[in-house]
């Protein structure tokens, strides 16, 4: 009953109901009892199996009661903690970095099918949320490449692979496919939501009740809540998984990943070891709205870039299309809340050798730029173009 009520939905198929009742260890006639008690109703459909419905009013009331009970056990604070870890949309930013990096580099894979360490290290330098590269010996269950990469990168990689954005070729190289075009057209929030859904799908195997846990978090953590008290309230929903203790599953697999996904923000104080967390507005939207409803503040304003006289290009309002275009002829220098690219002679040469259209690129730059492109940059770019365009037949 708890699990039915926790769920967002109120219509269940017969298999789901069976599974739910079985998992909770009810005796065989539990379903009949629920039906006879009058809070669950069967409805015949065209197919032979019935669907089961819990009336909305009843559902809401039970739900409210259950959550109120849990809320009573959770420790809440009103002043925000000093140090806060809020990654907002960093995940999709770094995903973009990853895709651009793969597009512009020749990436050879090891016999095991993983990227060589030097690429991973370079990626970590460019990521706005870098990870420790030491990977424990025992790792499985959390995705296809968990044993090769740290958690966050593994999630991004598996997502890219799952969606066919990247392809591991027979020659053991990694390439970006055309499928990425559809992705770059999505808004940041829509992109975040897709990765979030992928996470729940992927991590549901080791954590079967992940969907419910996320729902509990969404409901309880409107304010800053103390992590251990929420874990206690979750009770048996969180359990250990082989090498991961219950606490590790909670901290590493759930809270940490939800932070990466921008759903919650973590908080700490200077003197104490207590960990706190709170839902973000982004998280609320990602979990409660469907893709078309997701309003994206960045889609209102056009991507805006600034071309500086020292050949740096700053992107202040993010846009995947502009960014992947930029990376054709410029190197990503740093990715914080501003992405900084630098145009160098080598990067222009590289872009020309790859066959990208430089004239069109310059036009894009001029269009997206706030204010004119500094004269020295403009002139030098033209100079480089004439210089290296003539070399192209030789190199190709």
């Amino acid at each position: 009953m708890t699990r039915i009520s926790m769920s967002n939905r109120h219509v269940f198929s017969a298999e789901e109901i069976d599974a739910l009742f079985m998992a909770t260890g009810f005796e065989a006639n539990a379903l009949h009892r629920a039906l006879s008690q009058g809070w669950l109703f069967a409805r015949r459909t065209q197919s032979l199996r019935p669907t089961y419905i819990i009336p909305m009013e009843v559902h809401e009331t039970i739900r409210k009661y259950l959550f109120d009970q849990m809320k009573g056990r959770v420790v809440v604070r009103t002043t925000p903690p000093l140090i806060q870890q809020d990654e907002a949309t960093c995940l999709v930013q770094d995903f973009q970095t990853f895709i651009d990096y793969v597009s512009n580099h020749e990436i050879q894979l090891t016999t095991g099918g993983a990227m060589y360490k030097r690429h991973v290290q370079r990626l970590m330098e460019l990521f706005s949320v870098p990870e420790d590269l030491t990977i424990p010996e025992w790792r499985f269950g959390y995705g296809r490449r968990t044993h090769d990469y740290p958690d966050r990168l593994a999630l991004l990689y598996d997502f890219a692979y799952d969606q066919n954005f990247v392809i591991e070729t027979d020659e053991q190289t990694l390439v970006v496919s055309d499928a990425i075009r559809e992705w770059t057209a999505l808004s940041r929030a829509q992109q975040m939501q897709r990765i979030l859904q992928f996470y729940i799908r992927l991590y549901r195997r080791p954590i079967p009740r992940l969907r419910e846990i996320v729902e509990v978090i969404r409901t309880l953590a409107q304010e800053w809540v103390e992590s251990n008290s929420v874990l206690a309230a979750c009770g048996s929903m969180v359990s250990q998984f082989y090498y991961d203790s219950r606490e590790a599953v909670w901290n590493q697999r759930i809270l940490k990943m939800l932070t990466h996904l921008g759903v919650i923000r973590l908080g700490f104080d200077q003197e104490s070891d207590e960990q706190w967390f709170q839902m973000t507005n982004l998280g609320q939207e990602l979990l409660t709205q469907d893709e078309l409803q997701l309003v994206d503040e960045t889609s209102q304003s056009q991507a805006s870039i600034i071309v500086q006289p020292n050949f740096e290009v700053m992107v202040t309002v993010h846009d995947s299309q502009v960014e992947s275009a930029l990376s054709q002829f410029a190197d990503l220098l740093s990715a914080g809340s501003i992405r900084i690219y630098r145009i160098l002679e080598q990067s222009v040469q590289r872009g020309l050798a790859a066959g990208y259209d430089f004239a069109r690129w310059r036009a894009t730059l001029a269009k997206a730029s706030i204010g004119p492109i500094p004269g020295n940059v403009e002139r030098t770019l033209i100079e480089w173009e004439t210089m290296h365009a003539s070399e192209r037949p030789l190199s190709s």
Partner: protein
Amino acid sequence: MLQIYPQDAKFLYVTGNTTGDVEDGSPFAKIDLVAQRRQSMPPMYLYELTHERLWNACRLGWSAADVITFLREYAVSPLPTSMQSHICQAMERWGDLVLQEVNGRLELRGSAKVLSQIRQHPEVARLLVHARQQSAIVRADTRVALKMALAKAGYPLVDDQVSQVKPQPLDVSLTPTLQLRPYQAAAVEQFVAHKGGAGVVVLPCGAGKTVVGVASLAKLRCSGLVLVPNEASASQWLQHFLNWTNLDESQVGLDEGRQALKPVTITTYQRLMAKRRSGDYAHFHRYASIHWGLVIYDEVHLLPAPLTRLAAELTSARRLGLSATLIREDGRTNDVFSLIGPKVYEAHEDQLTALGFLSDVKCVEVQVPLSDEVRQSYDAAPLRQKYRIAADNPDKMQVIEALCQQHASAQILIMGQYTEFLQQVSDRLGCPMLDGETPKERRLHEYDRFRRGQTRILVLSRIANVAVDLPNADVAIQVSGLFGSRQEEAQRLGRVLRPKPGGKNFYSLVSTSTLEERRARHRQQYLVERGFAYTQVSAADILSEGTTVHEVKRVPESRVGRHVKEYRPVSGD
């Protein structure tokens, strides 16, 4: 509106209308107190949260929570966790080590952990006598040395050495006709209000630092010692005191070494440092024996470390450091702050230019090719002579002449590195030349003539780098520069930064395709990144006349529409 874009653990970009906010209290003024500006390329300004800046904030009474809350308030996206822990870690160290006077002896106190950590640094360890677990005795004469060694090792030391003795009051006030500019008033305000008593005010060259010093003394109404880098600026200070305060020559004067010190004494760092043959300081004790109300350190950024150390040993109720924008090729900016005091106020060039207090400067790099003959000897010369050959490119002479003709009515300063070539220039143009060997009297005399407009062109060797007030230079021509010293470039630019309608010109002559070109790029990068224009023209353009003006206009104005910029990345940047 101030907007902060956190970038990573230490760096953040700042944007918004910075120019309107030179007065204190605005969020922009606050940014300068907790972070160091690294680049200024409007509309974006790059700041770094350095240890030194964060400790500065501690000294001004900020906590880590204050800094984080302040940044969070204006940040467009959440602060990276690494940035928050960087701030906390740096600021936690503040207060770990305290220097105290106990029974007439100096004692360094801290937790056992910190003390054992600092003992790992030999430079620190050798200054500690009687080291015990949680304290160590420090000899009084090594106090400053210890401070510097600790700062270098990354440990701030809480030591507000300001003595408790009340200084001699002095009846000094500003003449009512003197109107402080808003940023000057704000600087004085910030310094006087700062409880620690010691602080550094950072203003660009030509922004009137002397006035800030004079006004601070007038506000505190006490005796004062002013330390300046050379005689020329000493007499400039004296003039300022006589013109802008009620003091007369019996109360303020330059110290010549013999007569009794006046309530307000101006002296040079050299005199402070001067030693007798026996090795004792000749004058230091005279200055040290007096308990000054205020010691002013002019141009602190120029001081070599040992001098700063000695100067910091003077006792006074308050210390005021006046500094141009601090960049040191030796990277020892920290010394200034750890020895003199925290930065209490800073205004940047671009802000003051926009407000009309500094003139808009056009920077032009003139590319002078080497003649075939010189090219041959350049190619043949060993590496260490190449720079000199490029610097003394004889073809620069014609360009200098052409520029002087183009700016026929302007006052021109010609500056360079090697005196031999400068001498030729001065002979050719028939104008006076000053170098390190020129007697002081003649130097002052020439400055004076130039100031009055009696000489139109003046040639200066490296001495031009230090503080001299040459208010009327409209055009500066840099014939050659020190090996890529950005400090030098900033100083020289400062010569033409003083306000005057119609804008100014700063020409830098560089021999094409030589070592000099690469060095010049290094220096220019500094100016480009702080929002100055750099245009490149060839010598031929200058010689054929008129094209310079055309060239400058042709380059589109940058986003803020003030500066024209020209810069190319150095290979391997």
